[in-house]
């Protein structure tokens, strides 16, 4: 019976190709919209996650001062190199500690100049921040100890100052400091917040303190935690240690802050996921409209075929059989819509991910869900017209013109 109903449905759809295709268009667009939105959203989530992970996983960022809402900070004394060393020494789960300070200065090479941020740090900065060298070498121990005038350039700085030339061995000027380029960093691209992460120059921390800043301050300590260790516990350890070193009494608040990168990741991916759900929900409304289109055309079909239904009932078709026939027809229609919708979504996702510059993610789960949804739409919106057909009075139906 079901096979027959299926065959009949195909026959009926073939008879009205134009009408059927216009009807399913609603479902096609609905399904495609839902899937595309979710795919783009998933792409954005993946992008956010990837970018944060490229900063370094299990990363804690320790800064002096407390956040006072909207970017304000209460004034607080900076850290010193000793603080970083203390963290490395006394917090057991620590994998790497990179103290740093930075300042924006104008860099000059030949006729080119470029304002960028100069970061005074050590080789741990590379490790902790997942940086790799494009060319050249890291700082040597003696360079770090002596505060030598050597630097590593970010990809943007290389491009702006050197163009296509090889920067290795060249002398550039960082403000008043003449400095030799010993290496360049592999590009990391834009951050989630839209800032250029390759726009920086690394020099040894001691060089920075002595020759640019003129103080012993450390403005930022990045701490990476060993894989498998709890970042929460490490965060607590660092807080306790810093409170002790900075002589903060029990009643006072911290005058420094420790940020967990994982928390930020969670927050940001949470946001994109909410956005994805929202986009999907909006797109689902169009699927609903598609369903109403199917109901409409099925009602028209039932009216047009009233005599046929009357004949079938007279011949001995059960209510259930007539209901099945029309329900199957609606479901076949909407399933066609679902299949074409998935295909359209595939195309749209590729194009949209290119246009919006997010990675292309095709989530087979959502494609299946989208298809099943289209089938469901057929059942829900096909039921009413099918019931109407099944409940027709055979005598009235036979007389229908």
């Amino acid at each position, binding site marked *: *019976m079901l096979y*027959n109903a299926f065959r009949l449905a195909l026959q009926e759809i073939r*008879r009205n190709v134009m009408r059927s295709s216009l009807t399913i268009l609603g479902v096609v667009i609905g399904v495609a919209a839902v899937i595309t939105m979710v795919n783009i959203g998933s792409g954005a989530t993946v992008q956010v996650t990837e970018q944060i992970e490229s900063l370094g996983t299990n990363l804690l960022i320790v800064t002096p001062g407390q956040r006072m809402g909207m970017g304000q900070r209460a004034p607080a004394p900076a850290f010193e190199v000793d603080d970083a060393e203390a963290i490395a020494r006394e917090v057991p789960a620590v994998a790497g500690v990179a103290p740093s300070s930075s300042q924006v200065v104008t860099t000059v090479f030949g006729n080119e100049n470029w304002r960028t941020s100069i970061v005074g740090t050590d080789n741990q900065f590379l490790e902790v921040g997942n940086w790799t060298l494009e060319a050249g070498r890291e700082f040597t121990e003696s360079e770090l100890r002596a505060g030598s005038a050597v630097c590593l350039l970010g990809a943007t700085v290389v491009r702006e100052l050197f163009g296509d030339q090889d920067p290795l061995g060249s002398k550039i000027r960082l403000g008043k400091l003449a400095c030799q380029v010993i290496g360049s960093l592999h590009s990391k691209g834009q951050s989630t917040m839209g800032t250029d992460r390759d726009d920086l120059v690394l020099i040894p921390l001691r060089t920075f303190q002595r020759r640019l800043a003129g103080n012993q301050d450390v403005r930022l300590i990045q701490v990476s935690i060993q894989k498998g260790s709890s970042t929460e516990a490490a965060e607590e350890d660092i807080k306790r240690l810093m409170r002790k070193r900075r002589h903060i009494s029990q009643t006072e608040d911290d005058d420094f802050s420790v940020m967990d990168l994982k928390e930020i990741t969670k927050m940001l991916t949470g946001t994109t996921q909410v956005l994805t759900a929202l986009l999907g929900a909006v797109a689902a409304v169009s699927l609903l409209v598609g369903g109403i289109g199917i109901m409409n055309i099925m009602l028209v079909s039932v009216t047009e075929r009233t*005599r*046929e239904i*009357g*004949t*079938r*009932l*007279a*011949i*001995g*078709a*059960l*209510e*259930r*059989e007539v209901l099945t026939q029309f329900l199957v027809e609606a479901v076949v229609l909407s399933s066609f819509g679902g299949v074409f919708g998935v295909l359209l979504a595939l195309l749209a996702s590729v194009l949209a991910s290119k246009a919006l510059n997010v990675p292309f993610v095709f989530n087979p789960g959502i494609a299946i869900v989208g298809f099943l949804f289209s089938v469901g739409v057929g059942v829900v919106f096909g039921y009413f017209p099918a019931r109407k057909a099944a409940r027709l009075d*055979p*005598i009235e139906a*036979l007389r229908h013109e």
Partner: protein
Amino acid sequence: MGGDQHRRSALIQLAGITKVYGTGGAATHALRGIDLRIDEGDFVAVMGASGSGKSTCLNILGCLDTPTSGSYLFRDVEVSQLTRNQRALLRRHYFGFVFQGYNLLNRTSALENVELPLVYRGIPAAKRRGLAKSALAAVGLEGHEKHNPGELSGGEQQRVAIARALVTEPQVLLADEPTGNLDTARSVEIMELITSFNRDRGISIVMVTHETEMASYADRVVNFVDGQVESITRHDEVA
């Protein structure tokens, strides 16, 4: 009623059948107490003016409609007590219908139209095809299997409808003005076809008509006037 009637078993027995549409002052009495017995192998013509209740009576006989009161025994089963689905099953297994307007499915081949009742009987496709082909052959439509109703003449369409009604070998064929849309020559062909099925296969036939010539093919003619049986004429008695 001749004594030979009682030798055959009663297929249909109507007793005091009434049908009322609407209620109260607006009520229309379509049937006002019909008593009728139809035996196996009978060929009964029902005649009467329009509005006399003959079509209503045929619909009740065909289990398409239920009487307001009275008893309808079909093979000793009280039909007026059956549910909609049970009546559909009764139609499926015992009745064949021929309508004035043919009621073939559009854009569906003659063969598929004839197969339709077999589909609902759950007969497998191959067997269905064979039965439908021989039914079409029996009404003289070999070679027209692939034709859609639109490609057939009125007479041919009614033959397809007859083939569809008879392919299940029903006990009763109910025909509502089967020749109403046809010219005299076609009408005679159709009547001879119907008569042959009654004579050769013993299928009982109840036919509604308003043409005396068509009624003359039947053994008995039941005359309806104003929702009541006015007279029953036996043709063998007349002849």
